């Protein structure tokens, strides 16, 4: 019915008087790699929360692969094929790295109590398969040697990559990344950019990326939506976004200057 894999139209939410997200439309085709930017507090994370069902939109509709997912609880949305990472990392800290990924595989498995207690062949096979799969994924991200470590003991960069890895384990159709490069150094950012492209191609999914590093966003995203005070103010290819006066105004808080915003410098937000 729609040419878009993820099709969110006019979604809005307000917290009391604060309109955190207003009439936001996000449409991502299969295989797309799109960006969502905006100054701090613009409502980007809120948009992710709306898409993934953490908050229920007060108006608007969301479809994933033609299926309506508006108002579904988060676990059903995840099952429908929408997975995400968190701005402030939310790993299962006390559990091992491997367990974190195996939890990502959880929603594609079956977990009836009887087979769990009796250790039926189906159960054993599923556990073994989850383990293989988790190790494969960890191997892809060069985390395999850390499989038995506690997730919280990992260095920050590894934790971010582990979170992406866990999100991929759910076999998503669309992956939402919330500031994956936050706190990384330039070389880490570069390899992150590479791996995001790689993920998109290898897993054949669409990616929506929130990022403050303009260099990264402009580099890898095909199209970018800009949010300000909860309202979408621009949606275009990176080159056009860079010289959009409304975007500069949103970031710099003043009417557009003559020059476009410098591409490489992340805005001081």
């Amino acid at each position, binding site marked *: 019915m729609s040419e878009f894999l993820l099709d969110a139209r006019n979604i809005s939410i307000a*917290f009391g008087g604060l309109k955190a997200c207003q009439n936001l439309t996000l449409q991502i085709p299969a295989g797309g790699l799109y960006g969502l930017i905006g100054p701090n507090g613009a409502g980007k*994370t809120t948009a992710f*929360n709306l898409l993934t069902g*953490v*908050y229920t939109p007060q108006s608007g509709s969301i479809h994933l692969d033609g299926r309506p997912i508006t108002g579904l609880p988060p676990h059903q949305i995840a099952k429908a094929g929408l997975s995400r990472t*968190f701005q402030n990392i939310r790993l299962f800290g006390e559990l091992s790295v491997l367990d974190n990924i195996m939890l990502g595989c959880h929603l594609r498995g079956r977990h009836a109590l009887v087979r769990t207690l009796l250790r039926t062949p189906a159960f054993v096979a599923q556990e073994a398969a989850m383990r293989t799969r988790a190790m494969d994924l960890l191997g892809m991200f060069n985390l395999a040697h850390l499989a038995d470590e506690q997730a919280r003991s990992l260095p920050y960069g590894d934790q971010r990559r582990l979170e992406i890895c866990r999100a991929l384990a759910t076999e998503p159709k669309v992956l939402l990344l919330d500031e994956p490069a936050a706190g990384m150094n330039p070389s880490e950012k570069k390899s992150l950019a590479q791996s995001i492209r790689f993920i998109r191609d290898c897993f054949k999914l669409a990616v929506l990326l929130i990022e403050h590093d303009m260099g990264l966003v402009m580099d890898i995203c095909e199209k970018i939506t800009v949010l300000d005070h909860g309202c979408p103010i621009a949606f275009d290819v990176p080159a056009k976004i860079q010289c959009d006066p409304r975007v500069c105004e949103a970031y710099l808080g003043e009417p557009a200057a003559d020059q476009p915003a410098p591409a490489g410098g992340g805005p001081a937000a």
Partner: protein
Amino acid sequence: MATFFDTLIATIALGSLYALVALGYTLVYGVLKFINFAHSDIFVLGAWTSFTSAVAVTTLLDTQGVPPWWVGALVLMLAVLVCATTGYLIERLAYRPLRKAPRLNVLITAIGVSLLLQNVGQLPGYPVVRDNVPPAAATADASAPAAQGQTLATLPFGPTPRSMPQLLPNAVLNDSAVASGTITAGSGRGQVRLDQPIEILPDRQYALVVTRTVDGEPRTTTFRLVGIEGGRIEAGTDIGTQPRRDPIDFENATYRLVLSPVVALRLIDVLIVVSSIALMIVLQYVVFHTRLGSAMRALSFNTETAALMGINVNRVISITFVMGTALAAAAAFLYTQKYTSLSQPASAVWVLLGLKAFVAAVVGGIGNVRGAVLGGFLIAGLELFGSTYSEVLITAAGGSSGIGTALRDIYVFGLLILVLLVRPAGILGTVTREKV
């Protein structure tokens, strides 16, 4: 109808006590976002400190009957002092190191503190006061044959339930004196004769207040009249009294015959309500109109930001704890005056009492000062009206007595579950959503 008003008065008194304790829970929850499970044990500490110091003071003064008013004030002071100090220490030693720990850990620590207070409280203690023997001598002679008199209190408080000495006059405010004069003993034990004729109303209670002078001091005893019917009783007729006393106890005595009201308004109830309301007003003022109050509210909103704004977080939290525990101590003192039999410190009775106050705080909306007060009255009302009327209904329907009364806890916890399901933040609370 009399039942209704009696229950109403009891509700207002008990509700005020619940509200005072609930305020302690709410204050601490406001600044620290955790349930101070040990708060009910602070209440117990207040009650038992009141008891021990009351026994000590009255024994030292060797007073008979109701002691002068300042004894009550002194006992209250002591209770507040002990509780506030304990509260401060608990916060300092047990809770402060866990400021950044998960909520569950703090909750478990609080349970630990609660168990500690309960069980230290009821260690078999040393006798501190013996009848007519100064406290110092009592411990020294502990091994001597126990002819010295009876142990009135121990420290710690010991595993024995005790009854609180009376510090405030047990007066009924709305009774009316029918007659007064001098009394003479009647023909038998427990019989008296009055010096004037009296008119007795049917179906009403009368109290005979007899005062006589012993060793130059007046002593007052209150009797009930028994075996009388409505109508006129001539002077000099034998009238039965309860409790029964020997004729000698009526020699040279004056009397006042008092008509008990249908619905009694007791001094202690009025005192509880008045002082609770006064404390609540003071608290309301402190929280909403002082610098300390705005610091508390800032902390409640966001601890980190409050610290950045130059608020001394530790100090404000300590003060909040001290305030909460002082309120609990005051409530405990008033409680001991109304309900004079004290269960042992680790008794389930106390924990239930504390839990109900906590339920009051949650039902009203925890973290909300007005909510705590509302919740206190609501819970007390539900408990007392619920138990009174279900008792009436069940016994009327032929059920055995006592069931209705036993149901009161079920009502309270039922209400808690209901409120939490319908309005998880309580009646006046505001919903806070976790930011993701």
